[in-house]
């Protein structure tokens, strides 16, 4: 019976950055919106490193005082590690030390997402946590087939004019929906990275000493080199208030070929003296892992259908260049999906044609522009292991050799260092590799 249906204006699947931002925008506009989250609380399944907050700031201008943020990132570095030597480039700016802190924060998502969900509930949206969306509900056939709600595991179906899928990288419901509706996949199959992280508890004073920080300020260090054994990826160290995150992101396919376990990779990374020193004396608080889509622009599928919009990681909206931006793009996509729904409601048309406004706005926003500009990042990924073999080991060796002290003439030391730097290096291939590697910046 159509009259007995529980129906709302919009259902959002997943209470992460994309879904919550969509719900925030819709509820503020006065729409009846329900967010369905499978975790016991928003964020309970989520893992991330840095949060770029430029979109969040538009939606919640005073988030800096309200949100559970660990530290703003005021110092960044890129480190190269060989087995027995290292080199680090560290940088920062005075501007990063004051609001808006270059929109870069260390957050813990289980805490941050939970707060964001509460903010969204205050705008009038309903959050149903601990509920699993199994599949979508459809009506009609052929091109007019449309999404009319969601099937909730072990519960009543829930109906709506439109469903916004924001279920994250696993994308199980999104995969089913795309198949059911015959939505066009990306030009290339999606590929994934795996992120693995440990959080180590340490007193804030110790963290600030070790990372050269003023009280309350934070550091983000990225590392490449020998601990990653020729895999496509690298490691990181981020500072929390009273904890340090250590971990890495590597391409799943390169890890599968290598037969190395993520656990061994993590132990190898921490065992390097340049990494372990930041964690020394600490206590492990939590271990976590998650995949992220890294296929980029060519792997982004069709994002709209009748009564349906796909956002965030489920849509593959991650900039997989050196920036690794995901949550901010998820927030943007959620907001734009909400804008499209608001427009659709005005004209009473939730057809694919009407929903396409979302894709159009996304294309014009920085989010998809960045992802499109980074579409050749896979070229850099292909040469990544060879370039990493060159950069960390040879370049750091050149520097340490240059500064080698003793009673030999410096000129002969330098000549020998340069000889060692260039020795056995296939010059043509190296030049070509470096040229292709430039794509890493996106």
């Amino acid at each position, binding site marked *: 019976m159509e009259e007995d249906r529980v129906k709302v204006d919009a259902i959002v699947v997943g209470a992460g950055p994309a879904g919550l931002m969509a719900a925030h925008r819709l509820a503020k506009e006065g729409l009846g919106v329900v967010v369905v989250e499978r975790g016991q609380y928003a964020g309970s*399944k989520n893992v991330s490193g840095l949060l770029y907050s430029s979109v969040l700031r538009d939606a919640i201008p005073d988030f800096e005082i309200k949100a559970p943020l660990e530290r703003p990132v005021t110092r960044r570095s890129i480190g190269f590690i060989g087995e027995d030597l290292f080199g680090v480039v560290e940088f920062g700016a005075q501007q990063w030390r004051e609001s808006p802190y270059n929109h870069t924060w260390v957050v813990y998502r289980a805490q941050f997402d939970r707060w964001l969900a509460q903010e969204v509930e205050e705008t009038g949206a309903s959050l149903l946590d601990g509920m699993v969306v199994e599949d979508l509900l459809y009506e009609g056939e052929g091109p007019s087939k449309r999404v009319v709600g969601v099937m909730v*595991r072990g519960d009543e179906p829930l109906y709506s004019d439109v469903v916004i899928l924001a279920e994250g990288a696993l994308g199980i419901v999104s995969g089913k929906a795309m198949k059911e509706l015959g939505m066009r996949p990306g030009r290339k199959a999606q590929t994934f990275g795996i992120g693995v992280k440990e*959080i180590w508890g340490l007193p804030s004073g110790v963290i600030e000493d070790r990372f050269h920080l003023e009280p309350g300020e934070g550091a983000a260090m990225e590392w490449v080199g020998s601990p990653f054994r020729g895999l496509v990826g690298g490691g990181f160290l981020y500072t929390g208030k009273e904890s340090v995150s250590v971990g890495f992101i590597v391409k799943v396919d390169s890890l599968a070929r290598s037969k190395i376990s993520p656990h061994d990779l993590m132990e190898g990374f921490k065992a390097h003296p340049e990494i372990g020193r930041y964690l020394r004396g600490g206590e492990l608080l939590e271990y976590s892992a998650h995949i992220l889509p890294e296929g980029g622009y060519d792997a982004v599928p069709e994002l709209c259908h009748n009564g349906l919009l796909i956002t965030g990681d489920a849509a593959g909206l991650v900039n997989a260049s050196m920036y690794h931006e995901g949550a901010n793009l998820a927030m943007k996509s959620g907001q734009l999906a909400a804008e499209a729904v608001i427009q659709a409601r005005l004209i009473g048309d939730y057809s694919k044609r009407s929903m396409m406004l979302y894709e159009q706005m996304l294309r014009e926003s920085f989010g998809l522009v960045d992802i499109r500009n980074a579409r050749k990042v896979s070229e850099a990924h292909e040469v990544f292991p060879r370039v990493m073999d060159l950069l960390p080991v040879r370049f750091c060796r050149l520097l340490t050799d240059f500064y080698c002290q003793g009673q030999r003439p410096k000129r002969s030391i330098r000549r020998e260092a340069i000889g060692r730097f260039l020795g056995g290096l296939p010059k043509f291939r190296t030049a070509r590799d470096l040229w292709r590697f430039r794509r890493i910046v996106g």
Partner: protein
Amino acid sequence: MEGVSPGPGGHGTSLPLEEKLYRVRYEVDADHPHIRLNETVCRECSERVCTFICPARVYVPSPEDPGRLKVNYENCLECGTCRVACPREGIVWEYPNGGMGVRYRFG
């Protein structure tokens, strides 16, 4: 000094996986494993990528029958790696029931 040696290079940060998983909070759904295997596919699989690529070592050869795989689904971090790494679609992975499974405090 005796007793404060950090060990070779590791600064005392090395931990066995069991110790790491012990620090993760789970709501174990004892009656509903959310992972099933396609037995025929897995028996014939020679690579068994799942046995090394899972960060929680959920997939291990069965102690009774090494031709089979045992699934320690209670340890699953719900990261999604096995689903995308298995080259044969041998893993049937569904979301755990509402509120069940991994429950990060930090994330």
